[in-house]
């Protein structure tokens, strides 16, 4: 029998077995789905977070908050001084009044809060756009340190620091997600192995006949391997579909929000989806191989 014919037979038998024992097969498919869904969700969130970080990295600025009593002349002088630094591309003065207006525009619901505080509640600042936002050479960090110590300056905020924190969170999320998915996948493999072992047990009479008439081990075990693989593929496909549904729902219900831009700006790439589905198939196949490895059938 040619390999192609054998594979066709394996998958035909696998589909027949899946249909015949659909309840237990569904259990295996669902456990694989859950594990891949968890892994895929963490992957999607971390991918979007990291993409946001990358986007924001290009827009990062150093913000030098000034003491409330800093006079406009002093602000201009400080801005000119900052602009002379080799890494500064542009320096904008944001007065206390402009800062308040910006806050009120960004957070209209909190507008009354700052209005009721009297005077100007927010400090004036210098926003320094950097020539190369992605890099922070030691000289720049030393320069920022000198600014932090100046009497006119109350605080120096470098966006890069919180971006780095978000980046760390995203990486951590990915790690936690993969670890969690790994654990769940191990459970899924175990479930698949149990389902395949049960199916093999239910077919022990037929296996005995196959062996009696001269079937090879490859021919006898092939349908069970194919069944595990198909269960895994189905789990991967369902997980990908569920992920896409969650992504589409988020985009539909939260259009233009921070949540959408953070979590659902991009879906997984076709290559990532393919990997997710194939990973499911590999998990199912592993379960099948594991279940029959020590079985004499």
């Amino acid at each position: 029998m040619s390999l192609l014919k054998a594979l066709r037979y394996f998958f035909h038998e696998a589909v027949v077995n899946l249909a015949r024992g659909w309840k237990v097969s569904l259990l295996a498919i669902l456990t694989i789905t859950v594990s891949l869904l968890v892994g895929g969700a963490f992957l999607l969130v971390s991918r979007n977070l990291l993409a946001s970080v990358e986007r924001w990295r290009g827009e990062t600025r150093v913000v030098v908050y000034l003491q409330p009593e800093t006079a406009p002349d002093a602000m201009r002088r400080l801005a000119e001084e900052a602009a002379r630094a080799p890494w500064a591309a542009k320096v904008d003065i944001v007065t206390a009044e402009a800062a308040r207006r910006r806050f009120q525009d960004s957070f209209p619901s909190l507008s009354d809060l700052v209005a009721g505080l009297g005077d100007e509640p927010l400090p004036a600042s210098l926003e320094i756009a950097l020539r190369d936002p992605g890099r922070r050479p030691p000289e720049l960090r030393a320069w920022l340190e000198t600014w932090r110590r100046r009497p006119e300056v109350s605080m120096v905020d470098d966006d890069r620091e919180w971006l780095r924190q978000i980046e760390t969170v995203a990486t951590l999320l990915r790690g936690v997600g993969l670890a969690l998915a790994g654990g769940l996948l191990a459970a899924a493999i175990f479930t698949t192995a149990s389902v395949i072992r049960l199916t093999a047990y239910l077919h022990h009479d037929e296996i005995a006949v196959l062996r009696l008439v001269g079937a090879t081990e490859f021919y006898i075990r092939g349908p069970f391997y194919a069944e595990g693989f198909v269960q895994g593929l189905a789990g991967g496909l369902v997980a990908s579909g569920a992920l896409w549904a969650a992504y589409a729902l988020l985009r539909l219900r939260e259009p233009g929000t921070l949540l959408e831009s953070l979590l659902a700006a991009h879906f997984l790439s076709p290559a990532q989806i393919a990997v997710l589905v194939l990973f499911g198939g590999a998990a199912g196949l592993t379960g099948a191989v594991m279940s029959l490895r020590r079985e004499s059938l």
Partner: protein
Amino acid sequence: MIQFFQVTKRYPGGQTALDRVSFEIARGQFIFLTGASGAGKTSLLRLIFREDVPSEGQILVNGRNVSSIPASKIPYLRRTIGVVFQDFRLIPRKTVFENVTYLPRILGADVKAQKKLAYHALRRVGLAHRVNAFPLELSGGEQQRVAIARALINEPEILIADEPTGNLDPDLSWEILRLFLEVNLRGTTVLLATHDRDMIHRVGRRVLTLDAGRLVGDQELPGTDPPRLEAPPPPAADGEIETPTDAGGSLGEGEPE
């Protein structure tokens, strides 16, 4: 065709199933293997199709030492041997057609060839009209005939039957025995284990007798009332999968392992 040289089979518990058994069966012979329950008949048959290996001695089937055949080659040996059991071993959820065509399917025969082979095999046992029935819709005799058709579908060189009439009434037993005799008429070597001495004496033929694992008798009986056998139908021919003989005993060895 089948040669046993001082074959001993001991099971792990220490029980000796066969004790230094030697005999030779020529191609085309019909042999009754008899003895009381526990005499070692089933153990002997299992050794021939390599379901088990001897503790001592050698077994040659078609000149090949079956106990030294590597595990991966056992299927190819089994494709040359048809086996029938007392309990039929049919798969109840499969039709008669599916039950008899396991071997052609394994060998990659297309559906048309499978149907042709199934028809020929079932016609030989008189069940061509029940091809779509399920085993549980058949009588015990019919089920055994389906099992025989399964064993015969690829024209095996050897047919082994372990108490094939044990579950059947005398009339059906006689009917089944006639089938084996007809198969033998076409050149297949038949080794039939039974403890039905009346049947053996009526039919005659060579009889090997086992007692507590030892071969205590090897005699040719004339037969008191041998059945009149009909000329067997012509063998399945053109357009079918190759037989073990055609393939030089290596049927389907191109199959992926």
